[in-house]
């Protein structure tokens, strides 16, 4: 009985240490990809055209990983819309059903220059994406900045605007 009591306390401690590890880990893994060229890929857009990494070679674009099942994407949507006046935004539709994705765009507004369809998350893996939403700043085919989670004024000013 005493053993069970003590081991349950130890288990609880391990759980907290594990959570602590996640916090520290999340901090380290950020923006490992910054400074590297945009990964080589060959994929379809949401409206069925071919697209490859050559698309990025001569442009400054914001690449946004999104999905129709992601609520945070809905939250950052208005802010991205306001950014779309000044910068081209390329969407990567991540692990999504094309029908749901285009319905979502009709509903909430489509300001994306183009949307890369990434149903298996292949491109996302190459980009080191951990989930939706995430955003990358790509200048002439090179990844300059990367943020995880909702894009907002503060993150834009802190991580993206200085690199434009």
């Amino acid at each position, binding site marked *: 009985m005493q053993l069970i*009591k003590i081991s*349950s*306390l130890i288990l*609880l*401690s391990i759980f*907290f240490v*594990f*959570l*602590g*590890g*996640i*916090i*520290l*880990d*999340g*901090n380290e893994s950020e923006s490992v990809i910054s400074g590297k060229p945009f990964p080589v890929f060959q994929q379809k857009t949401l409206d069925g055209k071919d697209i490859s990494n050559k698309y990025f070679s001569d442009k400054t674009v914001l690449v946004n990983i999104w999905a129709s*099942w992601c*609520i*945070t994407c*809905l*939250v950052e949507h*208005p*802010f991205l*819309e*306001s950014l779309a*006046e000044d910068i081209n935004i390329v969407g990567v539709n991540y692990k999504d059903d094309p029908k749901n994705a285009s*319905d979502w765009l*009709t*509903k*909430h*507004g*489509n300001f994306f220059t183009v949307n890369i369809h990434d149903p298996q*998350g292949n491109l996302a*893996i190459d980009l080191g*994406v*951990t*989930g939706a*939403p995430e955003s990358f700043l790509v200048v002439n085919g090179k990844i300059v900045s990367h943020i*995880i*989670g*909702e894009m*907002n*004024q*503060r993150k834009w000013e802190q991580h993206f605007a200085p690199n434009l």
Partner: protein
Amino acid sequence: MIPELANFILILSMSLFFGTSLLGIYARKIESARIIIKPLFTNANLLLLASFALLIYLAVTDNFSVKYIASHSNSSLPVFYKISSIWSAHEGSMFLWIVLLGSWSLLFVRNNYKTDLYITDVLIILSSILFLFTAFLIFTSNPLDRVLPLSPIDGADINPILQDPGLAIHPPMLYMGYVGFVIPFAAALANLTSSSTHAWEKSVKRWTLAAWAFLTAGIGLGSAWAYYELGWGGYWFWDPVENIALLPWLCGTALVHAMAVSSKTSNLKAWVTFLAMLVFILSLFGAFIVRSGIIDSVHAFASDPTRGLYLLSLIAGISLFSFALFIFKGFNYQKKVMLFGSKESFISLNNILLMTAIFSVFLGVLYPLIYETILGPKISVGPPFYNTIFAPMVLIAGLFIGSSIDSQWQRPFRSIKLLKLAYCLVLIAIILAFLYFFLGISFSAIEGMSFIAGSFILITYTLSIFNTDRKRRIANIGSFVSHLGFGLLLIGIPLNSNLSYEETVAVVINEPKQTERNTIILNNIYEAEGPNFSSIIAEVEVNPGTNAVLLMPEKRRYANRGQVTSETAIKSSFLRDIYINLGELNDQDQWILRLQSNYFISLIWGGIMIMLLGILVFLRKIKHAAD
């Protein structure tokens, strides 16, 4: 000057909380010192309040030298939003959280006139918690930090989706719920440390119920806010932060029911102690998840690993301490036999179900994190997981709740009542057949389980009004009303999910458009100016003629952040809500409109409100009993 004053008062308050807990530990042995602890605690709390009041004053007077106000408020905002902007981000909302925690504890302590070891221990626990959190506020997220010498002329403005009356009430209400659970927590802990024999759960029962009512209202308000104001088109998304608010709610539900058992039959004593600890720790855990940024969510604040680690060690310390105490001291109660079919047995069974629900939600929230850490790829656990897990539990819980109305404390179940319950089930089968054959409603298995549970509760509870046995007549009107509300909620959810539908149409001005089930005319579309935004407003008529409904959805662009928001137009009636969202202008000069028909939303809100009403009635009754 004032920001420094506020900061100084806050630091003073933190030191006083520290002093109170130290003195409290000293006063455990030296009884003559006990008299001073309560006034110290009171003063520390008053200082905390004063500091918060100064922050409100600074926000109202547009003092943009304070960094927090400069980044979240703006001089063009109405005063109302200047105040609510204080809890629109991490630092300020944490401050509010602590102030509510302090004031609520103060109320509890002032209501207790004893100076025995038990209340001394309660004070030590409360002031230690308050000390740890004010220290967290001051050292990692001080809302009173300044931008000097060059302070901005104007602020950055509050996020438009937060410029809503919903923000003014949803977070404070929810926080009241979270922090309210500190009372049962401190009482349970103090009962163990002081080895007291008095029935602590009786003295905190109404505090626990009040906290639970606040949490219910807070979650309900958040859900109504998402539905009516933010235009998300639904009321519950199984978003991680919603789940995390649901954890203490489920645990609080288990706790208030278990408290009833332990105060009526002195069963479940150890269990109540455990739940009282768990519920507050789950509330803290929620604060940690939201503020550490380990989970992506609508509600997540800016992530900062220092804060996350501080909070985590705080929670780890508090939970390890309390669970260790519980494990080594919490089982010294006499074991009592529980008769199957008695009221307490039904409540205990539902307690087991609630624990299973807590575990499932906990797993749903943390599984993606664990999976990602061990195996790599990110996965997300969505509504199908929760719906599938919850439906059967809701069905069983509903059957237990319905059956329990005919049971008594410490008496076995009378088998004659089984027949009545069987009749109720037959009646539900008839209702389901009627819905299917005459109205064409066929529920999915998941919807059906919730519907059966809800109608079973409603029918058995309504029948109990006509109970001729006077002793068995509704013993407790508060609990009766609350359970009816819960039954309505369980019926509303499947009806809503089954009947609601969505249509997207492209329209030109003044040309009626026929969809599958509605006719839509765009009468007019024009531009207008608001205080800090410009907007496009559409006048849409749905089903012109007999059932005409006029709706005016809107699109706003906010000047300060250039952010665009959609203001949904909703026309509510008992049966259905018509919900219209204004989309873009497409290249054929047509406006895109999204039309949603949501059925029986009124049952969902009504159910929650009736539940709350029941709790209020119950609270009044306990108060009378206490007086």
